[in-house]
């Protein structure tokens, strides 16, 4: 079948793109993992588009909504056609004499998945776009008969920002329907003048910028390194792991994550007792926030404490999801401090909670070398640790950052870059938690498994699962449980179980963070007497609501007797 050969070519193109390091180019050239373009470029491929031509493009994922434009045919030829590949849309323009011409087709590309594309410029006056699996995405009637111009392939990045335009090209092949490869472009650097461009392995020619912009190959070591897990790899991970059902852990004697971790207040006994409660409920995982400032102050101590935490969790058969950074602030504190922390301000939900590493470091890029060290040190120390099932790099980015949000977004990107360079065995994730489109695109594209927060009722819980399932990756709701919103065990836990979506509720033992209080509750409001927002147990470990715990145990299987060998007997 014709497509098979093309698919093979496409697959080869993809593989070539990722195995660039093994490629040998002519002397004087070094391969690059990928390039981006800014401004306008011209690559004259020298290919006569008279015969049926295929173009295989291997792309990396896009982190920003920037576009790249590929022109088939001379752009000034009024009978030409135009492909515009933008972040979420693919547009085919047929030009019937007016520049730029009417739009013929608009397809919403999946913005979350790396896609390779193939254009097929047929002799039947049609131009077609396929994805790498061979699925035809759209077709366009063209008039190619009137011109014998060489196709002029134009790279144009629509970015206005020098720091944007992350539309990466990994490889581009131009071939014939017969399978003959006419051009085989890989990103490369000409060593003499360090020019960046496309090297054609067929003609052994180098194509650098010939327009008003530039090709860029950021000097990022991770560019050469691993990319986000493929869907297949992520799904394999999902199949080899159980249904995750657990909780977010703030030990009851800690008002914030400084108190969780600093030497003065780190409390293995409290943690052990709380883990016992968790096991009794049938939980199998725990999410824990790490305070950068404690690490910064004494990394040796921090590693010790973290190792102890992992040990205790392991003994309780709880897999751990560490959260490395956090933007949340529920009062006015924007920076964590060490030493004695504030006392709870009675009636103020999460009074005393501080972000990690704190807003000033997030904004002040000069400090990011230190943050990089922390991320890489922590992850590489535990990169093959089976007690950790996933790395949550950054909790609720931009929450509370207001006008400084873009700094959080920039730091999220860096976190992925740093973590990828370590290439741990565990999946990386940053959770989607609100409607910020830019953030959601970013985390959907970079995360190996999808994590998200959902403090809504059953209907919305289902809707979010439906929506995020489209991404095709294992999912964990890393924060839920808001009793007064009917986001509770009775209404929602069954949905997570039924759909096989992991879930981690907020709060085990009610403590210094006063998380039984509603969001935004402050000390000048009257004493709160409503249903607890979060948390399952009073400070003295008696259940807030024994019936809901019965239901919880039923769903996790904790009710099921445990055999002597540790296995649960199926009912």
């Amino acid at each position, binding site marked *: 079948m014709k497509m098979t050969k093309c698919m093979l070519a496409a697959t080869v193109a993809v593989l070539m793109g990722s195995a660039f390091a093994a490629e040998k180019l002519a002397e004087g050239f070094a391969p690059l993992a990928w390039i981006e373009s800014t401004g306008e470029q011209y690559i004259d491929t020298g290919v006569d588009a008279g015969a049926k031509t295929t173009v295989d493009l291997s792309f990396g994922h896009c982190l920003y909504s920037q576009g790249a434009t590929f022109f088939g045919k001379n752009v000034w030829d009024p009978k030409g056609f135009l492909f515009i590949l933008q972040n979420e849309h693919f547009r085919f323009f047929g030009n019937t004499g007016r520049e730029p011409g009417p739009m013929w087709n608009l397809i919403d590309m999946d913005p979350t998945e790396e896609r390779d594309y193939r254009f097929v410029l047929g002799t039947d006056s049609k131009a077609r776009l396929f994805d790498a699996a061979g699925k035809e995405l759209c077709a366009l009637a063209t008039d190619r008969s009137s011109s014998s111009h060489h196709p002029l392939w134009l790279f144009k990045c629509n970015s206005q920002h020098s720091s944007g335009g992350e539309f990466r090209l990994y490889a581009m092949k131009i071939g014939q329907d017969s399978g003959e490869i006419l051009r085989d472009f890989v990103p490369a650097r000409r060593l003499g003048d360090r020019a960046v461009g496309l090297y054609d392995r067929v003609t052994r020619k180098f194509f650098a910028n010939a327009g008003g912009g530039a090709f860029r190959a950021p000097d990022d070591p991770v560019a050469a390194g691993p990319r986000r897990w493929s869907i297949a790899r992520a799904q394999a991970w999902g199949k080899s792991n159980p249904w995750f059902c657990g909780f977010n852990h703030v030990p009851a004697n800690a008002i914030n994550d400084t108190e969780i971790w600093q030497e003065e207040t780190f409390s293995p006994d409290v943690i052990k007792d709380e883990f016992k409660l968790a096991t009794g409920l049938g939980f199998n995982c725990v999410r824990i926030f790490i305070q950068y400032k404690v690490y910064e102050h004494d990394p040796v101590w921090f590693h010790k404490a973290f190792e102890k935490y992992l040990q205790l969790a392991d003994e309780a058969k709880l897999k751990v999801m560490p959260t490395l950074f956090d933007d949340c602030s529920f*009062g*006015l504190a924007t*920076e964590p401090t060490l030493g004695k922390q*504030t006392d709870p*301000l009675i009636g103020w939900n999460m009074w005393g909670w501080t972000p990690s590493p704190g807003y*000033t470091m997030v*904004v*002040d890029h000069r400090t990011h070398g230190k943050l990089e060290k922390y991320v890489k040190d922590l992850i590489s120390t535990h990169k093959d640790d089976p007690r950790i099932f996933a790395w949550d790099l950054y909790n609720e980015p931009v929450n509370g950052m207001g006008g400084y949000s873009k700094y959080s977004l920039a730091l999220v990107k860096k976190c992925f870059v740093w973590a990828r360079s370590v290439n741990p065995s565990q999946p990386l994730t940053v959770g989607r938690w609100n409607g910020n489109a830019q953030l959601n695109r970013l985390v959907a594209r970079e995360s190996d498994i999808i994590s998200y927060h959902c403090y809504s009722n059953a209907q919305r819980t289902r809707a979010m699962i439906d929506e995020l399932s489209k991404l095709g990756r294992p999912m964990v709701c890393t924060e839920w449980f808001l009793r007064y919103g009917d986001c509770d065990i009775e209404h929602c836990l069954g949905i997570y179980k039924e759909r096989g979506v992991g879930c981690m509720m907020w709060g085990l033992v009610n403590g210094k963070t006063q998380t039984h209080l509603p969001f935004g509750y402050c*000390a000048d409001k009257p004493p709160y007497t409503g249903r607890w927002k979060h948390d399952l147990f009073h400070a003295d470990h008696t259940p807030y609501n024994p019936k809901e715990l019965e239901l919880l145990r039923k769903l996790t299987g904790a009710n099921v007797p445990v055999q002597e060998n540790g296995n649960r007997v199926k009912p």
Partner: protein
Amino acid sequence: MKNMKKTVFVAVLCAAAMALAAPGARWTLERAQAWGKANPWYCGFNQIPANAINDVDIWQKGGFSPEVLRKEFKLASDLGFNCVRIFLQYKVYEDDPVWFLRAFERYLQLADEAKLKVMPVLFDDCKFGPATDPELGKQTEPLPGWGMWGWVPSPGHTMVADSRTHGRLEEYVKAVILHHKDDPRIFVWDLYNEPTFAMGHFGRHSLALVKKCFKWAREINPSQPLTVCRWNNDKGVNDIVLNESDIITFHCYQPADGTRKVLKDMVQLGRPVICTEWLYRPNGCDIPNILPIYKETGVGSMIWGLVNGKSQTHLPNGVYTPNFKGPWKHDLYRPDHTPYDVKDLEIIKKATGVK
């Protein structure tokens, strides 16, 4: 020992504060106008010494710099300025009240030698970066391109919102004012700069604290007038400050039309008026266009910035603009004390009448 001394000192002050006669009340119009007549046209500046990135560094041990102050005061008096507005940092007082009051006394001495009356600002909500609370010790370095990077509020947003801490704030306000309640070197007490700035929906805590400040200050009943500025159109703030202040102060970074309008509204209240913050060259709120308005109307004028320094106040506040090419926002002198614009200085000297 130091703590003991501190405790005793503060206890004595508090006892003195508590032992006073009945608290004062807001000055009547007559008393305020008499004060206005007995005082000159105030023309001066807000000071951040060039080597200080914020008011922690103005006052803390290792930051307080009498020599820098002396030199900057000389520039000021050469221009004919007769007053200076200076921000106090609660955190420095909290750490060591004895040190703080000594530094403050030294500041007043130096200002007096340069014939500058002083308007101290006790609290401040402003922040131009992410940080909401002051810390002692080594301050951040300027982030080049970010105006007012490193500036911190006083006492900081967390204390403002946490009323359990207000006993300590009361102690501070009363100690500082009591210590100088008849000090002729101080001409006005500015209790709280720009309340609710960047407080978001916690603004109500600032308003509550402003009211407390007036109450505490009245209980000391100093000889100098009390004021808190009008700085925006927020009715919540203005209902308090325009009804509690003995003399009216306001901030105005508008060009001529906007300035005249606000000025008119303030003057109509019938009390002496001082604009305690202006000068924003990029939008026409500059010396040639605006200083004459204040001179001609007799409304006091205190521009922002004398010597450009670590606070980078020539740049837009609170945003990262490394390639900024516009005119200087604030400030009259470069860090080396050469003038930014000689014409500005000539206009000032003409207005102040300095020889």
